[in-house]
C-alpha cells in the first residue's frame, strides 16, 4: 500500500518539483491552505498573447509529498492549454495522472493545487468557481 502511494513518479515530482517558483506580476494568482495539515500552495499564471492560453505556470509553498507532487504534476499538465479548459478540468483527470490510491484525508492533499489554480483562473476571468470547489471540504482557498 505504502509503495503504491509513494511510487517512484510521485517521489520524483516531490523531490524535483516541476514549475516550482514565482512569476512576478502574474496574470492570475491564488493561494490555498489545508488547515488540517498546514499544506500551503500559491500558484502563478501567465497567459500567452491571446489572453487565453496558459503560457507559464509556477507554484510555491510547502506541504506533504502528495500535495507537492500532485501540484508539480499539475504544472506539467496544464501548460499550453486554455484557461477555460483548465477552469472546467474535472478533478479525475489529475487524479488519474497522480495514479495512487488516496484516502479521503489524502485526497484533499492531492487536490489542493488544482483547487488553487481554479480559483486563480476563475478570478482572472471574472467567472465564479463551481460549487463543488468553493466548498471543497476544509480547504481554505483564496
Amino acid at each position, binding site marked *: *500500500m505504502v509503495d503504491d502511494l509513494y511510487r517512484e513518479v510521485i517521489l520524483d515530482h516531490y523531490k524535483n518539483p516541476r514549475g516550482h517558483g514565482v512569476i512576478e506580476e502574474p496574470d492570475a494568482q491564488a493561494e490555498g491552505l489545508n488547515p488540517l*495539515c498546514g499544506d500551503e500552495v500559491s500558484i502563478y499564471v501567465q497567459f500567452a498573447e491571446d489572453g487565453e492560453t496558459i503560457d507559464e505556470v509556477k507554484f510555491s509553498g510547502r506541504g*506533504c*509529498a502528495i500535495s507537492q507532487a500532485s501540484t508539480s504534476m499539475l504544472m506539467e499538465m496544464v501548460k499550453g492549454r486554455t484557461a477555460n479548459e483548465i477552469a472546467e478540468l474535472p478533478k479525475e483527470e489529475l487524479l488519474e495522472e497522480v495514479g495512487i490510491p488516496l484516502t479521503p484525508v*489524502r485526497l484533499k492533499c492531492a487536490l489542493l493545487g488544482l483547487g488553487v489554480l481554479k480559483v486563480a483562473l476563475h478570478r482572472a476571468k471574472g467567472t465564479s468557481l463551481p460549487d463543488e470547489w468553493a466548498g471543497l471540504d476544509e480547504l481554505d482557498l483564496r
Partner: protein
Amino acid sequence: MAVTARPALDAQKLRADFPIFEQKMHGKPLAYLDSAASSQKPRQVLDAVRDFYETSYANVHRGVYVLSERATEAYEGAREKARAFVNAPSAREVVFTRSATESINLVAYAWGLDNLRSGDVVLVTELEHHSNFVPWQYLAKRAGADFRMLPIDDRGELRLDELDELAGGGRVKVVATNLVSNSLGTVNPVARLAAWAHERGAIMVVDGAQGAPHHEVDVQELGCDFFAFSSHKLCGPTGVGALWGRAELLERMAPFNLGGHMIRAVRAEGTTWGELPYKFEAGTMPIAEAVGFGVAMDYVAEAGLDAIAEYESELAAHALERLAELGGVTTYGPPAERRAGIVSFNVDGIHPHDVAQVLDSEGVAIRAGHHCCQPLMTRLGVAATNRASFYLYTVPEEIDRLIEGLHKVRKILA
C-alpha cells in the same frame, strides 16, 4: 503479611484485556501510539456496556418499574465513581455531559453569559486544546471582555512570571488551563494558577481531558472551581463526559441545555429548574455510556493512577532517548520527568502526514496534524507535528517499532 510497595504497572498483562490488539494492521501487530486522541477499550468496559443493555436498560429517573430503578442505580452509581475519581466533595457537584468539550461549553455559556462583561479579562494558555480556547474566545467577544493568552517558554511550560503583567488593566474573571497539554504532554501547575486566579476573584477552569486518565486528580487539592473530563480518553465509551463544579457556583448558574428532566415545574407562564446536578442534564443522557465510563474509572483506578503516571513518564523518556539517537528529529515539550506520556516531534524535512502514512504501513498508528492546538503550533513555528502518545497498555516494543518505522520513512522520503 509484610507491607510491600505497590507493584509497578504491568502493561503486558493489561494489554491482554484490550481486544483491539488481537488484529493485525497491514499484516503487522498494531502499535497504537495515539491514546491522547482516544484510548482503546478493555473487555471489562465492553462487557459492562453490553451487560447493562441486556439486563438493566431503561430510561433513568422516570419509571417506577424494576428496570428503570436498576438503570437509575447504575447511572447514579457511575456518578459516584466519577466523584470519587476526582475526589469531589459531593456527587451532586458532578454533572454528566456528552464530552469534556461540552463540559467546558457548559461553564462558558452558563457561567460566562451572566458573569462576563466589558473590561473583564479572560485568560487561557497558549497550550490549550481548541476545546478550552474557542469557547472562551467566543464568550469573551460576546461580552466585550478581553481575551488574553498566557505564553509558554521554549520547553512548552507556562510562563507564570508573565501572569501579573498580563492581568494589568483589567479584572481577571476566568483563568482556563488544561491539566496536561494534549500536544506536548506538559503537566501544568494548576494549583499555583488557581491560587493566583482566586487572589483576583477569578474562577479557575481546568480541562482535565488529558490529565484525568493519566494522573491522580484531587479537585480539592488542585483548588480549581471547574474540572472537565471525558470517558473516551479514559478507557471508556465515547459520547459521555463529566463536569465537576463547586456547588455554590453551579447553584447560581443558569441552565445550559434546556428540555426534559432538568426542570422542577413547567407552566405556560414560566419554568423552574431542577436540583443539582439534574439542572444541567437535559434530555436522555448517554446512560449506558455513563455506566461504561464508571467501569472504565474502576479499571484505571485499579491499575493505579500513580503507577500509570510513572510508567508513562518512563515511556516518554525511552521515546525521547531513542528519537535523540536517531538524529535529525526535533522534539517539542518539557523533559521527560515533567511530562505525561506524550511526545511530539518532527523529522527534519519530512511532512508529518508522510511520516504517519509510512508508519501506518508498518502497523504503527501515530497522530500527524495540529492536534486541535493551532495557537500552539504557531508558537512552535510549525504547521503540524507528529505525536506519539501512550497509555497503560503501551509497551516499549511499540516505541521501538516507531523508531524502526522512522528509518523506513527516511529511506522512502529523504
